[in-house]
């Protein structure tokens, strides 16, 4: 099981978890994920949350977070906030705005530039993300195809911000919410790993209902989600 939330215990910044790690992976190389850091010989917690373990040797701290920290290769939704030289500035919810080159769109060339204006919503992948530079986005894959990325344009959609946990939960194959909803209702949804979700339904009433449902499913188990859905669609 990938998202193995090990125990109900909450760790706080400063806790040393050497002994915990040794009980699971003794003498092996371990990978430390978000919220864990190494000080000399100690593994120290730097975020408040629960400790997670992913086989074979990865540990991280899971916590409720809304601030996005860019990570290379993640799919994110951003809002264009302006232009700078050959780049669009994109607000992806991180501390720095991401850059998006005019040429990083399918079929774009020096002459055929995309025409985006501030406020437009784009879905793309982070091509560069490190702590010393501004993150850079791209809306094409390695073959130069859009592959679903690019401008998100629809009349009846809404963009809303959720916690990063919820976005990851919705995208995880274990979560049944979106597939189950899809089997009962026609809608389109784009989930960015930065917690932004774009949702498109046939009517604004449906959109509002689904938005509330998605927001409230953060702490629901699969069984509970099914109960809610059964209640809704009876």
């Amino acid at each position, binding site marked *: 099981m990938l998202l193995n939330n090990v125990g109900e215990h909450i760790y706080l910044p400063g806790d040393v978890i050497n002994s915990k790690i040794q009980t699971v992976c003794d003498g092996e190389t371990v990978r430390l994920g978000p919220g864990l850091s190494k000080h000399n010989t100690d593994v120290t917690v730097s975020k408040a949350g629960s400790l997670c373990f992913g086989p074979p040797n990865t540990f991280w701290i899971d916590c409720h977070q809304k601030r996005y920290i860019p990570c290379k290769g993640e799919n994110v939704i951003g809002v264009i906030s302006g232009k700078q030289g050959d780049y669009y500035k994109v607000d992806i919810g991180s501390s720095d705005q991401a850059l998006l080159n005019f040429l990083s769109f399918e079929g774009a060339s020096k002459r055929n530039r995309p025409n985006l204006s501030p406020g437009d919503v784009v879905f793309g992948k982070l091509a560069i993300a490190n702590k010393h530079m501004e993150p850079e986005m791209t809306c094409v894959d390695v073959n130069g195809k859009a592959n679903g990325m690019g401008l998100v344009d629809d009349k009846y959609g809404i963009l809303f911000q959720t916690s990063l946990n919820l976005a990851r939960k919705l995208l995880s194959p274990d979560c049944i919410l979106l597939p189950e909803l899809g089997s009962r209702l026609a809608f389109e949804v784009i989930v960015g790993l930065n917690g932004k979700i774009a949702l498109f339904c046939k009517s604004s*009433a449906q959109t509002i209902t689904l938005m509330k449902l998605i927001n409230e499913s953060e702490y629901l188990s699969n069984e509970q989600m099914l109960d809610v859905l059964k209640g809704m669609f009876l």
Partner: protein
Amino acid sequence: MPLREPTLSNLENNFIVNAVCDNRRYDGRRITDARDTQITLGLDYGCCTVSLGETKVMAQVAVEMERPKESRPSEGSLHIHVEMSTLASGNFDASKPGELGIEIQRILERSIILSRCLDLEELCIRVGERSWAVHLYIHVLCYDGNILDCASIAAITSLKHFRRPDITVEGKTVLVHSIEERNPLPLTMHHMPFCTTMAFFKDSKQLLVDPTRIEEKVMDGKLIISINNHKEVCCMQICGQVHISKPQILHSTDVAYLKSKELSEFVKNVLTDDLKYKQNGEKEQQVSLLCKRNLHVKENLMCNQHKKENLLVEIVNPITTTENFASELKKAPEWLTKHDSKTVSVGEGLINSWGKVGSSFFKSIKKPELPNLESNSEDENDSDEEIITLNQTS
């Protein structure tokens, strides 16, 4: 350096405007609904926290003695201070109040001081020599639109809740009695003006009560009406690019009046309940919640802050511990289920330098099951949300 405000997308903008045309709002409220109002009275006199949805404001009243103004020798004074820290929103600047802060402070001054709802003459101790100066501090704790309505409820509640120390005047000496010595006295309030903000959309044709942060960004402009439950308008202000007709203003005044009537009833109930609690010797901090809709009913948040060492934290999490989950826990190594004895270390996540402190705090964190989720129609898909109950153990 304040943070940049998140960029508003065209999707949100269009959706909100289109939904408003269908008399809908993106958070499921009706157009004249305010968000859930919650008042938490503090232990000190004149302290209260009011939340309106996610918006949260704290108010505290304090008095000091001063020499009255030359122009009004027989009156005390009321000063309103509004603090908008970066705690509320990253793009507020803590060092200066900003446009919004000044606007809120000015409207509160007009609504509370200029409407003469507080009897200032009663605050005079010796004409021309000594009087009470009442300071009302408003702290914005969390910003999700419509700070003003929230702040006006907090201001009125804390002024009503406040008790000043009793005094005896003997010749030229003024003797201030401590609370233990003599019962403190309330301030005299003639009426309770509450502000209501109405946002206008679509060339001022559509009106929304209690706009959220996003709605405030999308709106054309707003109309603020401060009105008391005698239907007397205390202050009215129009901001932004709106053209409001006479019938619209009359209609808005009616809406504001209804809301103000409801709120003054609510505040009175909160304060009488608090008095009862205090008379019974219970030191429980009291929380009251005004819910207008069945949708989104949150359980009361009971918090008790006066004995921090004896807090029993009971987190009722909507995740029911299924058998599957429980058996998984059993399989896990022992340390995973046991609570650690480490405590908080403040900072960037360096090594814990506090040593071992009692583990009773963590042991008291329980995770009981929650009753079944209720969900019926499409509009009422609301589930019970996280309920945190803090009780005193002793």
